[in-house]
Each structure stands twice: as structure tokens, then as C-alpha cells.
């Protein structure tokens, strides 16, 4: 009986017991995390290709879900970055779908939530920031550094530039912590209430009847978690848009 609510986040090797290979003496295992990331990619690819392969004029349910997600992301990019932001559509759609499927897969019992690991979310966030910096320098050259220089008299800039630099450096951290903390908190909460059900149920007598209360709460929290899973994927994608927008257009805040 799993009574430790954090046990679900344990990373352990699956399928292969030996390390696949090693980098600089560190053994690299094929972990449950890697497995569920691969499953998320496979399910997303299968779903999106299978539903739109027919390309009906009157879409089926699956096709209209795929089309809706396409339009949703395209609208999001257009409203935040304008039409020239659509060049980034493949990147943002991939990030959105990848995070969304990981979040939703994690809600199925006995699965592992890859986005509940800060290693995953921080890698994704640093990737986004790296792309932002590279496109910024490619599009604007050294003018990209104006991002760190707000319009103010020079004696204030001594103070403001370090603040802007720190504020920039927080982006990958706030981006990754938000996603990871939301998933971690939600899944921990579910596990805690689930253990209440088991404990009360095992207590016998009137307490067993009371076990219904946390069970109903689990249903409610699960519904909330569905919302959070979609919302966090959306937030991650829209912040990616906002950051990339600063890279392709002149920063004017």
C-alpha cells in the first residue's frame, strides 16, 4: 500500500535494468520519466496524424479536435506576436502539445507525470530562452541588448540594468517552476486524499462510511487537475510566445 504521497515521483529505471550507456562515468538509465516522455510523443503524433490523415471537409470528432488545437495555437501566436510570429508555429505547437499530453497522461492512474520533474520543465524553459536569445541577436543584432536598458536617466540605469538582467534571468526559472510546482502539488494532493480513503476505509465502523467524503473530494480535485493540466500547457505556450515576441520585435516596455 503506497502511503507516501511522494512515492509517485520516484525516478527509477524501467524495462532495461542496466544503464544504456554512460557519459563521463555517469551511467545513463532508461527511466520511467524517459518512457513517459516517449509515450507522450508517440500518443500525440499518432493522434494528430491519424485524425487528420483523411482530411474530411466535415470533420470527425477527432479531426475537429486536432483542427481546434491547431487554430487555438495559431490564434494565440497571432494575438501575441502578430502574423510574422507564425514562423514559430511549429515550435510553439510542439511545446504546447508535448506539455499537454504529458500533463494529461500523468492523470491516468499508474502513469508517471514527466512534467512534475523540474529537470524536464527547466530543460524546456532553458531551451525556449536560448531560442529567444539566439533569434533576438539574429533579428536585432546588438540592439537586442536594449531589452536590458529601460528608458531612464543614466544615473538610474546603474541600478536599473542589473535589475533588468536579474529579471531576465528569472524567466526560465519562473517558467519551469510554475509548470513543475503545479503538477507536483496537484498529484501530491490527489495521493494524500487517496490515502485518507484507504486509512478511513480500513478503520472500520462509522469511519469506513466517512471515507466517502475524501473520495468525493478526489473526484472534484481530479476535475480541477484536468483544468490545471490544460491551463499550464497553455500558460507555458503563451509565455513562450510573449518571450519570442520580445526577440523579434523591438522591446518597448
Amino acid at each position, binding site marked *: 500500500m503506497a502511503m507516501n504521497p511522494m512515492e509517485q515521483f520516484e525516478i527509477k529505471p524501467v524495462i532495461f535494468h542496466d544503464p544504456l550507456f554512460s557519459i563521463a562515468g555517469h551511467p545513463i538509465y532508461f527511466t520511467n520519466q524517459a518512457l513517459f516522455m516517449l509515450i507522450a510523443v508517440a500518443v500525440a503524433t499518432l493522434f494528430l496524424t491519424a485524425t487528420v490523415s483523411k*482530411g474530411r471537409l466535415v470533420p470527425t470528432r477527432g479531426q475537429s479536435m486536432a483542427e481546434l488545437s491547431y487554430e487555438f495555437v495559431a490564434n494565440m501566436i497571432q494575438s501575441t506576436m502578430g502574423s510574422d510570429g507564425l514562423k514559430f508555429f511549429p515550435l510553439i505547437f510542439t511545446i504546447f502539445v508535448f506539455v499537454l499530453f504529458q500533463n494529461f497522461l500523468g492523470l491516468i492512474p499508474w502513469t508517471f507525470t514527466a512534467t512534475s520533474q523540474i529537470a524536464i520543465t527547466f530543460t524546456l524553459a532553458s531551451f525556449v530562452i536560448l531560442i529567444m536569445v539566439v533569434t533576438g541577436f539574429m533579428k536585432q543584432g546588438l540592439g537586442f541588448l536594449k531589452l536590458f536598458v529601460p528608458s531612464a536617466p543614466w544615473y538610474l540605469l546603474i541600478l536599473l540594468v542589473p*535589475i533588468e538582467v*536579474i*529579471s531576465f*534571468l528569472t524567466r526560465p526559472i*519562473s517558467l519551469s517552476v510554475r509548470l513543475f510546482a*503545479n503538477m507536483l502539488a496537484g498529484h501530491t494532493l490527489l495521493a494524500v486524499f487517496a490515502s485518507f480513503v484507504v486509512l478511513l476505509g480500513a478503520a472500520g465502523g462509522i469511519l469506513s462510511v466517512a471515507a466517502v467524503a475524501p473520495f468525493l473530494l478526489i473526484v472534484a480535485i481530479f476535475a480541477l487537475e484536468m483544468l490545471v493540466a490544460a491551463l499550464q500547457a497553455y500558460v507555458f505556450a503563451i509565455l513562450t510566445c510573449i518571450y519570442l515576441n520580445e526577440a523579434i520585435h523591438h522591446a518597448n516596455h
Partner: protein
Amino acid sequence: MPSSEPDDLKRLRERIDAAGRKAAGEQKPATPPAPMGIAFRLGTELISAVFVGGGLGWGIDWAAEHWASLHTRPVGLVVMFVLGAVAGIRNVIRTSQQISAESAPKEK
């Protein structure tokens, strides 16, 4: 989409697309962000800035001691911690401005 579709269907699709674009442009605040999402977003902005500031300060002290053998130990941490807190508040102000700009109806 098959390219051999009749003309009237094509025209219909153009009209639908135009309507869609118009709708997307005009009623942007169709879904105001969830209050909990906003709270969490602002919270992480503030906290992570403080952590980054503190971490940078600690790093500066460490580097000064290791590479230049200067004993600046608490100064860098204190200064950068304060700057980090300021940056956090700056982040929160900017984010909340962004959110209210997103959910307010677009004029112009």
C-alpha cells in the same frame, strides 16, 4: 483538402475564414485568465527573482573569494538579494500590466 472543390464552397470558406479572423480580432478577451492562474503566475515571478538575485550574489561572493581572494562574503549576497527583490516586484508589476492589457478590450 481536395483542391478540386467547387467554387461556391471555396468562397464560403473564405467568408468563414474572414468571419473567424474578425471574431478573433474583436473579442480577444473571450477567456479571461483564471484567478488562480494569475495568483500563481505572480507568485512564481516574485519568488524566483528573489532566488535568482540571492543565488547570483552568493555566486559573486564565492567567485571573489576563490578567484580574487577578496572577502566580500556578505556584501554581494545582501546587495544582490535586495536587487533580486526589486526585480521580483518589477516582474510582478510588468506581469499584472500584461494581464490587464490582455483582458481589457482593445481600443484603437
